[in-house]
């Protein structure tokens, strides 16, 4: 009796086990293929160029060459321009993240908690700007920036990106859930509106602020188009523009190029490993924001 009853169950569970093993094999292979170029970057950044391009490739350097990193930082001319450009990237990405979080919270709060006339028009207007690709407005923005004498200055990097529609959307959605009774209570206690924002609202946007800050930081870290336009002097460029320049130089070798790539990736990977929750959650929110 038991053998008749058990056999289909046993068959099903063994085929489920096979499916499960196949799924793991497929996923492991996918992860391996995706990660391999990153391992390649890390390994090659410590190799002499001959080894980077000698096949069969050895993933672990035979001859370790940490000097690649020194050369990467110093540059081919030894002018340490890369260090300055890294500093620029850090300053620009951090400042833009901060202004985006602050201003988006301010505007998101205004849209979420005040029923003024024209609120919907303002909200829809801001959302509509999400449809405008930067490539379409970049020339006019460039002309505005030139008119304001913002070339080769940090303001030139920061002012055009002070805030964005996605940030406003994210903060508005988050603050819609903020308890209105708490705001009312504070008003009855005679708290001024700016103070309510500063003391109550702004201090309670933690998760949304972290998500927005990370998305913004990564976007700015990645920005190539704008620095190509706004920075004419080499020392005012940011990392992506530096990389393009370094790669185009005749005497840059492959090992050092990978060291440059690795250095450029360290800050974002550090953020990724310490705050992966916000990266992964943030992409999901970002996706939803475009809905």
């Amino acid at each position, binding site marked *: 009796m038991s053998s008749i009853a058990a056999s289909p169950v046993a068959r099903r569970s063994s085929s489920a086990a096979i*499916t499960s093993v196949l*799924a793991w094999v*497929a*996923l492991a292979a*996918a992860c391996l293929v*995706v*990660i391999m*170029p*990153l391992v390649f970057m890390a390994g090659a950044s410590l190799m002499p160029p001959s080894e980077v*391009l000698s*096949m069969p*490739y050895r993933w672990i350097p035979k001859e370790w060459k940490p000097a690649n990193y020194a050369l990467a930082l110093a540059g081919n001319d030894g002018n340490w321009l890369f260090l300055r450009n890294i500093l620029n990237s850090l300053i620009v990405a951090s400042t833009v993240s901060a202004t985006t979080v602050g201003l988006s919270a301010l*505007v998101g709060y*205004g*849209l979420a908690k*005040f029923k*003024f006339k024209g609120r919907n028009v303002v909200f829809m*207007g*801001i959302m509509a*700007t999400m449809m*405008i*690709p930067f*490539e*379409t*407005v970049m*020339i*006019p*923005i460039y*002309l*505005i920036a030139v008119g304001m004498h913002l070339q080769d200055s940090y303001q030139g990097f920061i002012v*055009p990106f002070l*805030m964005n529609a996605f940030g*406003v959307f994210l903060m508005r959605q988050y603050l819609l859930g903020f308890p209105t009774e708490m705001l009312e209570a504070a008003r009855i206690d*005679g708290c*001024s*509106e700016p103070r309510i*924002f500063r003391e109550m609202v702004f201090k309670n946007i933690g998760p949304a602020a972290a998500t927005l800050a990370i998305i913004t930081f990564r976007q700015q870290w*990645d920005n*190539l*188009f704008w620095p*190509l336009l706004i920075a004419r002097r080499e020392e005012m460029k940011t*990392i*992506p523009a530096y*990389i*393009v320049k370094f*790669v*185009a130089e005749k005497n840059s070798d*492959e090992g050092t190029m990978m060291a440059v790539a690795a250095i450029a*990736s360290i800050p*974002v990977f550090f*953020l*990724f490993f310490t705050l*992966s929750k916000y*990266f*992964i959650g943030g*992409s*999901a929110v970002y*996706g939803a924001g*475009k*809905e």
Partner: protein
Amino acid sequence: MKRARKTRPSLEAAHDKWGWFFVAPAILYFSIFSFYPILYAFWMSLTNKKLLSLKPPTFVGFANYQKVLSSSDFWDSLKNTLEFTVGAFVPLFILSLAFALLISSRKRFQRALQMALYSPAVLSSVVAALIWLIIFDPRGLANAAANALMGTSGKDYMWLSSTSMVKVSTVIVYVWKYVGYFTILFVTGIGKIPASVVEASIIDGANARQRMLRITLPLLRPTTVLVSVMILIFCLKTFSTQYLFTQKGASLRAVNVVTLNIYQTAFRDQNLPQAGVMSILLFILMLVLSYAQLRASRGEEEQL
């Protein structure tokens, strides 16, 4: 000061006016950096404005549009962009959906798998392009791997130097970089499918394939639409990979996508009106896509 603010009559209306105070920065910012520029871009496309010229530009109507639409250069770059978009869309969509379904069916290591697949998306586009630039070197890893896979020996697949292969190469970089990003969007979408529906189907005796085809995929449609449009919009805006590859000697003609063409036309040729025309056309293309997405997701709501 605290006391002075207490205006008892119509407290509601009085405080609602503060809304304007809070949204004022947005009105100022978006007027200057979004609305004015888009109008300016359109106006610019109707004039003969030069980048560095101080002469006031004159109005020329749609002459620039005529010029752009009859130039083979523009159509070539549009073709490049569309080739790239289609070439990247298909593998990105299929792989990210497949990975997400596999990950969602795992009970353990979901997070680790997502992080591993997502990791290239953390990199700057330029860094991603640079890593592959070295891999695609004639003496590099890509040729070694391709020779091993195809059973050839010592063949140069000309990843960067052949005009057709360099298109494939840019697609590879893009798929590699973003597959994890879209996988996460799909995993989130699958996670939103109510567990009760899935459980009910199991009780009703649906097998894994039936569950996939009858439950998961239909209920995943909003995410599917979202991801499709996002992939399209991402692909239409591709720039860094093509730019870096051409800086390193790849044929500009082969990878001259619309964004790169806009950049070259505006800042190398200093031809702002024609760059403006192309950027307005790109904008319209994206508007149409966003509209299609909106329609699709509206239709979804009506169905439910």
